[in-house]
């Protein structure tokens, strides 16, 4: 930054421009310094106040016990691996189903009314039901029917619950994306002789996917942490939260929850930053590609 990068036409910044640049650099240094100082001050004040509350020693003992944390870390991390696998499998299924559902909802013509109506009812119901309730109904309710050919595995029913709920959300996101593609794009594709299906496949869906990438990733981050809700279905599948719960119940120490929480953050924060990055990049490119 200090040496002016050589422009292809041999342009060298004028003295005036050099002055402006150095002024801006000094302003930036000043802003950085002020931000640093104020952050340190806030951190010290907050840390000091928390550490001087009456219950702090007990809080530290039961939530931030480093030795115990080390002891349970391995099991909780192993549990987190289950969460990650669950998230990946569910997301793949969710995207496929959501796309089908979105397409079903955008079908036109009277023949398709039942399909359209069914998909509308489906999205309404599963967007409206609390996820925990869906998990209980599927995880405990369905196996209790004792239908022999259905799986009685609680993990599978947990996954189905997540898939059903998130499919409803993602389908709406995709549908909004498809409807946001300007009709002139369809007109152009149809005028070239593409059928409705081919127009969707080659023109509308690729553009819609790009446009709704940020909200889809947002839902993925949300799914990532909601996989923890399968802990509610209990053993024998130990995810990070269930593992933490069991550890906490045997030792009356809550450090495992904090560990589980931190592990989830390690997963979700990079994901969120990635989402932001995609959104920014997209805002930048789609400005030029407006139709």
């Amino acid at each position, binding site marked *: 930054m200090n040496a002016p990068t050589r422009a292809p036409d041999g342009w060298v910044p004028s003295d005036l421009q050099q002055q402006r640049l150095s002024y801006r650099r000094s302003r930036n240094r000043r802003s950085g310094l002020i931000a640093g100082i104020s952050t340190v001050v806030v951190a010290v004040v907050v840390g000091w106040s928390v550490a001087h509350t009456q219950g702090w020693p007990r809080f530290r003992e039961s939530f931030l016990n480093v030795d115990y944390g080390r002891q349970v870390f391995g099991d909780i991390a192993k549990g987190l691996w289950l969460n990650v696998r669950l998230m990946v499998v569910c997301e793949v299924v969710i995207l496929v189903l959501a796309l089908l559902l979105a397409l079903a909802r955008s079908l036109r013509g009277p023949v398709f009314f039942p399909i359209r109506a069914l998909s509308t009812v489906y999205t309404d119901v599963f967007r409206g039901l609390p996820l925990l309730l869906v998990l209980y109904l599927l995880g405990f309710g369905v196996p209790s029917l004792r239908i022999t050919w259905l799986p009685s595995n609680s993990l599978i029913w947990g996954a189905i619950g997540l898939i059903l709920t998130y499919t409803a959300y993602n389908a709406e996101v995709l549908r909004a994306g498809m409807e946001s593609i300007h009709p*002139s*794009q369809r007109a*152009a*594709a*149809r005028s070239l*002789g*593409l059928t409705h299906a081919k127009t969707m496949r080659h023109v509308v869906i*690729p*553009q819609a996917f790009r446009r709704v990438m940020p909200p889809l990733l947002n839902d993925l981050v949300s799914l990532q942490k909601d996989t923890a809700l399968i802990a509610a279905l209990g053993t024998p599948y130990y995810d990070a939260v269930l593992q933490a719960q069991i550890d906490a119940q045997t030792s009356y120490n809550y450090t495992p929850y904090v560990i589980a929480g931190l592990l989830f953050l390690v997963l979700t924060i990079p994901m969120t930053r990635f989402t932001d990055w995609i959104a920014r990049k997209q805002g930048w490119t789609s400005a030029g*590609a407006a139709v």
Partner: protein
Amino acid sequence: MTAGPTSPRSDPTAADLLEIEHLRKAYGEHVILRDLSLRVLPHQCVALIGASGSGKSTLLRCLNLLETVDDGVIRLDGVDITDPRTKADQVRTRVGIVFQAFNLFPHMSVLDNVTLASRVVHGVRRAEAEAVAMDMLRRVGLAEKARATPDSLSGGQQQRVAIARALVNKPVLMLFDEVTSALDPELVGEVLGLLTELKAEGMTMLVATHEMGFARQVADSVVFLADGGVAEAGPPEQVLAEPTDPRTQRFLRRIIDAGRL
């Protein structure tokens, strides 16, 4: 007026490529085209002129079956394309349209835009489709932009790509919907030049335009649309210089006042 435009250059024995009879199209209460009739001979270039809202775009969209007509008949090569049993997609591959706003697909390269129809509609292999498309791009002078994305091109270049894309289907009829209206003045020439070349090669064209210079110099006949129908039609020297319909006279006066003729 329902009599078709007759051009001094046209052969009276030739069959019409396009016949439009008593066409009607309304959007709800708003009637855009009422009882419009028009005939176009093969290799003719017809300029459609008329005020904004006179139905030029709607007519072209009806011809490409992007709109369903309310009444009347459109025949292409003697075949009624307004018959609900017609395969719209097959008709569309024979009738190319170029839009005012280009409507290129922003998520594809220029080359993919041009090859899309061959690959996806006609099942041509990519290599083959690209060879044809490159020829077409060379034809419109944009071969070196094949790998570029549409939004990195100027308006004139985008419009030329759109024309190449429409030509790849080897249409028998080309529709141009105010293709220069969204362009900066200095870019209009390159697109009109291309249209003039197409006309010289014998393409049958319907050109909705506000470029009176183009209508006068290139078109075989000029059709003036007003009140949802053909108000006046004939060779350019007649319609543009000695209009008989008062609506045409008013329209041309306004254009002259605006310094566009």
